[in-house]
């Protein structure tokens, strides 16, 4: 049907699409369970960081804090600050988490070879307890403050993690490093029971179009305050900073045209 004067450009495009489109944008959409995540490195330094900016450095670029080239393991966002691609996304949950890099990926000299690494978690657990108890998450979508919530690692917990565990401790030998046989472990809350779990459910899903721009950050806005420095966490005689990542995950549904 050739276009007529009364038709809008949208209608013309829809007609062309319906006849020749390589995907059925107007007829059938598919919905997938999906998550978008982004991690940022925990900056080293005696002062401690004051802000973490998420979803701004895509995979393939270096994390500005620790210099590690980000891969799919740190983010699956292709474009900075937007979903991109041909999909739209409905965010239903916000999850925050801290990930201590696997031992083999710790950048500190000698850490990966430390046979008593597991027994040295007390200092790290103390650090996490402080770091994860503070901060303010701000989510801005198209210049509009969509969410401001304090203490995000507590109020928007991961909802995933390890199960039961008892950290090891030794009373002799390497015990000097672990406070007379004491040890500790701190992880994100793993409780997620769907809509009634600990994770932060958005009562109404947040709809993000492919090029909807958004920003997300976790800051410590108190005057003169900062997150704790990640130095001297592994006291294997060489006081190493931890290679630590903080992460945010948008959990929800990806919608795309059926192909």
């Amino acid at each position, binding site marked *: 049907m050739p276009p007529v004067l009364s038709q809008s450009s949208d209608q013309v495009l829809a007609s062309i699409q319906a006849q020749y489109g390589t995907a059925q944008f107007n007829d059938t959409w598919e919905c997938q*369970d999906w998550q978008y995540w982004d991690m940022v490195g925990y900056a080293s330094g005696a002062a401690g960081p004051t802000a973490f900016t998420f979803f701004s450095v895509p995979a393939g670029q270096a994390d500005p804090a620790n210099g590690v080239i980000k891969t799919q393991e740190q983010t699956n966002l292709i474009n900075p600050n937007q979903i991109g691609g041909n999909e739209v996304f409905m965010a239903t949950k916000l999850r925050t988490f801290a990930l201590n890099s*696997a031992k083999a990926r710790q950048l500190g000299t000698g850490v990966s070879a430390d046979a008593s690494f*597991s027994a040295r978690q007390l200092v790290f657990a103390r650090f996490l307890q402080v770091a994860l108890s503070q901060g303010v998450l701000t989510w801005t979508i198209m210049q509009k403050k969509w969410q401001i919530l304090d203490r995000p690692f507590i109020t928007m917990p991961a909802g*995933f993690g390890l199960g039961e*565990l008892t950290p*090891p*401790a030794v*009373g*002799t030998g390497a015990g000097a490093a672990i406070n*007379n046989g004491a040890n500790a472990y701190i992880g994100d809350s793993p409780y997620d029971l769907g809509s009634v779990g600990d994770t932060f459910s958005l009562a109404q899903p947040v709809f993000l179009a492919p090029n909807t721009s958004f920003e997300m950050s976790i800051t410590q806005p108190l005057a003169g305050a900062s997150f704790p420095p990640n130095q001297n966490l592994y006291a294997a005689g060489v006081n190493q900073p931890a290679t630590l990542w903080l992460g945010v995950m948008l959990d929800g549904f990806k919608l795309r045209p059926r192909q």
Partner: protein
Amino acid sequence: MPFDLSKTQTLPAGTTSAQVLSSLQSQFGAVRYQDQQGLRYPYYYNLAYPAAGSSVLQFFGTSLGQSSAQITNVEQAGGFGNVSFLLSAVYFDFWVYNPATGGQPQSYTDDTTAIYSDIVHGFTQGGVFEFTVGNLKWIQTLLPFMFAPPGNGRLRHALSQGAFAFSQAALTPFAVTGSQNVLAYADLERRACRKMNLVNPIFIAPQQNFTAQINYPSGLIPIIATAVVTGGAVLYVRCCLDGYKFTPVG
């Protein structure tokens, strides 16, 4: 349109070969393809984790016939064979196989002897799981051993620890004079609600191919507890695709 082979001489005009085959199938078929029965059927794959780690852990790359039921129960590598499958949950697990002649797994504090170190600082702390059907990624999940843990119950465990020794002198606080080692224990989250239940199940038709793999693009994660996984011991990681299998009524 049923017809009797012993009586039918001619077929009506327009009869297609598909109709003839359908009629024969309904009368003589060993399987009733028009009637499908569904049953819950978790498909699993146990993969030996390489000691040095791997950039890709590829699950379901071999079939039951090519390996054994301890490894997998899929009848076709990279697919479900001649059945339809509705994938409703995905979860991951691990276990250590110790041969009868091997040493017992230890639960001590040294990283080289305790599997604890691998769970807390090893392979569970990285990776991205991808489930692809054809060319389309249907699932992409960060940290699969934590985000999609085994939701099938857990072993009860009780660790008995040694007591501390104290000394006390007048007007001085307690002093710890000796202490025992504390055994290490760690496990994945195992409550049923925590496995990765898909809100949108994925239907996979017979003979459709899929890939299920964990990628570690940020670097290999070797096995830490080498004393546990030497002497013939193997650390297996398990991927389970849980859902409903639909097969013709036989």
